């Protein structure tokens, strides 16, 4: 068996038991008593800042009060009614930047109510029941194509099905879930939760899943608009940005998303090869996840090299701390210049950077790190070219999620906005409501917070 000091890229660096421990649930669920104690800390704020901070506007004070009165199932209904992927969001949301960051107890004591873990408690409780909590309105006769079975597409499909429309849900991959299934760190979505959540969601009925069917390969947008009354695109960002440095073709240089996808699909994590010395280029969630998981697989040294300072990293402070506490080194203000080696990568040369206000520049000073594996995590890009108007590198949409093409909506990572699971869910849900309004002439449902502005004088 290999260990952390075995040179090159090797599997079995750690015992299977150690791997299992390393990849255990990052935030284990609260039991009923812990949940009651945590729930009691909520002040039931008026027009609560946490609700405003939640992209899906879950009524957080209400669901927490439901937990504290012994009605965790009802709490789950409150959450999932606003955010059907509330279970995954409870696991993956950067709550420190969202609800918990806005919690008044964060302001008061630096210790917010544990909203994420309470949400997990409530959704776990409700989803453990065999029945599906939502029903369908009578069939409308309308048919909608949803392309992409990631968070945006799933949320859209579910809401459309609820409203009585017949949905065909296409995905290029042979497994649904999008990045929930292929991207999210393994210790956030344990025990096959992503798959279980999709199965649970599809219980509503009225959604025909068509895996292995890609728009642009097996389907065309014109074909879809001809066949369906409306089309929703939730195709995410399937491409990755290229790294500008010499030697990126050497063996051992990989896309971080590919590594993570392989990791998420591995039956036996200990059999997954990882470098002894790993360098990750980038500063977002993907970079952090690739780095942390490399360490957890047994890499001896892992460095995240980011071209700017830590304050500018896309990964939240919490994620950065998670990385450093896992033994990952975060190297700030350094960009790759060359990847060195004889066939396979052996070293990476980086150059320090500085920004004097006119843009980021190399300082000329370089350093070299040993590297058997280099992960590129400098952003994902939209690959779909469906003739739609663009907004930067993404699909242009209006406030209702409508693209430049008639009867075509889009949401999630492929459209502007933060690339977060919860944002994708909100956009998918709201597009569904707009599609429903458009198809039936019904008034567009209000999906935002209920109290809100009306109260403010």
């Amino acid at each position, binding site marked *: 068996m290999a260990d952390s000091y075995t040179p090159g890229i090797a599997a079995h660096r750690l015992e299977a038991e150690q791997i299992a421990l390393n990849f255990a649930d990052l935030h284990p669920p609260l039991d009923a008593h812990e949940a009651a104690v945590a729930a*009691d800390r909520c002040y039931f*704020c*008026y027009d609560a800042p946490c609700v405003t901070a939640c992209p899906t506007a879950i009524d957080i004070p209400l669901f927490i009060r439901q937990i504290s009165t012994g009605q965790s199932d009802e709490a789950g209904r409150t959450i999932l009614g606003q955010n059907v992927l509330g279970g995954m969001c409870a696991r993956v949301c950067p709550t420190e930047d969202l609800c918990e960051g806005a919690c008044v107890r964060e*302001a008061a004591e630096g210790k917010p109510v544990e909203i994420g873990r309470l949400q997990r408690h409530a959704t776990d409780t409700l989803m453990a029941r065999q029945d599906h909590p939502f029903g369908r309105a009578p069939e409308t006769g309308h048919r909608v194509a949803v392309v992409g079975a990631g968070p945006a597409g799933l949320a859209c499909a579910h809401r459309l099905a609820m409203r009585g429309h017949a949905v065909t849900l296409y995905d290029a991959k042979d497994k649904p879930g999008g990045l929930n299934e292929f991207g999210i760190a393994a210790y956030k979505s344990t025990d096959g939760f992503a798959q279980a959540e999709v199965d649970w969601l599809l219980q509503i009925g009225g959604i025909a899943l068509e895996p292995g069917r890609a728009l642009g390969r097996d389907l065309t947008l014109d074909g879809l608009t001809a066949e369906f009354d409306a089309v929703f695109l939730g195709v995410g960002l399937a491409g990755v940005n290229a790294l500008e440095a010499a030697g990126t073709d050497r063996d051992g240089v990989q896309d971080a998303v590919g590594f993570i996808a392989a990791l998420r699909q591995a039956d036996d994590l200990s059999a997954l090869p990882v470098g002894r010395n790993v360098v990750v280029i980038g500063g977002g969630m993907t970079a952090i996840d690739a780095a942390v998981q490399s360490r957890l697989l047994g890499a001896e040294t892992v460095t995240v090299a980011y071209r700017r300072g830590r304050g500018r990293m896309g990964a939240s402070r919490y994620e950065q701390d998670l990385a450093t506490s896992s033994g990952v080194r975060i190297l700030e203000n350094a960009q790759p210049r060359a990847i060195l080696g004889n066939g396979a990568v052996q070293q990476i040369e980086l150059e320090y950077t500085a920004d004097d206000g006119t843009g980021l520049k190399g300082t000329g000073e370089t350093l070299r790190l040993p590297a058997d594996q280099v992960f590129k995590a400098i952003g994902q890009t939209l690959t779909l070219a469906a003739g739609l108007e663009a907004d930067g590198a993404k699909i242009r949409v209006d406030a209702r999620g409508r693209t430049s093409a008639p009867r075509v909506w889009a949401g999630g990572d492929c459209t502007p906005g933060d690339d977060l699971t919860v944002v994708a869910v909100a956009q998918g849900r709201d597009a569904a409501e707009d599609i429903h309004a458009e198809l039936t002439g019904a008034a567009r449902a209000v999906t935002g917070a209920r109290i809100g502005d009306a*109260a403010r*004088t």
Partner: protein
Amino acid sequence: MADLTTDFVGITSPNPFWLASAPPTDKEYNVRRAFQAGWGGVVWKTLGAEGPPVVNVNGPRYGAIHGADRRLLGLNNIELITDRPLEVNLEEMARVKADWPDRALIASIMVPCEEAAWKAILPRVAETNADGIELNFGCPHGMSERGMGSAVGQVPEYIEMVVRWCKAYYDRPVIVKLTPNIADIRKPAEAARNGGADAVSLINTINSITSVNLDTMSPEPSIDGKGSHGGYCGPAVKPIALSMVSEIARAEATRGMPISGIGGVTTWRDAAEFIALGCGNVQVCTAAMTYGFRIVSEMASGLSAWMDDKGYARVSDVVGRAVPNVTDWQYLNLNYVTKARIDQDACIQCGRCYAACEDTSHQAIAMSPARMFTVKDDECVACNLCVEVCPVEDCITMVELQPGETDPRTGRTVEDASANWTTHPNNPGAVAAE
């Protein structure tokens, strides 16, 4: 260092903290350990008449109200008086008193409302050398169905009668323990005094059903699917006990009568409040049953530190200090005008004051788009609900308007002189101000 020694109706104890008559004082083993822990005195678990002792239920005796993290806020019980033979209790009492002469040991008694019954038990209690007796006229469950406990405590004439018997057949202090399950607590206290009682102690437990099991539809604690009301005690009953104590402390007929304060005493502060309202000492049951005997250390050190801080040398210096400030509503100064003020630096923007005032009070708090909450002085009636619901202590305070200032709500100038309802023009029975 403040002197915590107390002399209550001639009974001295090293501190004013006694254990109330209840399971903590049910036997020699407990009481010795309580004294070791530092309790100033105990009222032994209520004794019954000679003969076969009472029996308790063999299922659960307690129901409870819990706060966050299962903190016990209120306790309910259906336990009866001691279920051990009288002679065993008396022997144990005598032994403990002999070994702990500096601690107060009081015998609690409940026998049928017949002179012979009292005449029989009192000499036997006297033999134990107990410092005094407490008449349990308070137990609201079980015993009351048999014409004892609160069934006696609810009839002032019976109280007076039994106290007279006790004063006739017993020569040490007689304390009468009152039931709160009565409309006017002053009546039984007055009866006790008329009968010659040396002191009253209150409160015993309050009739209560703490909860209903919604699966079995039985009240808790459930005995084979049925429940009966029990007696409520613990932190939740303190406000009720304080009010009743104050009534006795200030009523003409009972003023100056020694009071042993009972009901929800959990910390030194609770004790200090009972003492300030006229109690010569306090008795504790639920707090000891929840946390064990060691809490007396906190109570004693806390009371002593607070007294040092305030410059009180003896417990008796504190007794009754707050009584002159307890008055009737009609005498409250209606010219005292305050307004709520929100400290913007302390405010955490939860909006609870807004919801409370807007939804349920006087619509006197404004909320800006940036979640800044401010009081509208022209609407604020000074109810202070916002203060009570604010999670941040001292964030909202009530600021007094000075004489000469105008109250923007009423448009009236605040007057210096005090004026109350008795002279108010809206009061049909108002008397002309002098």
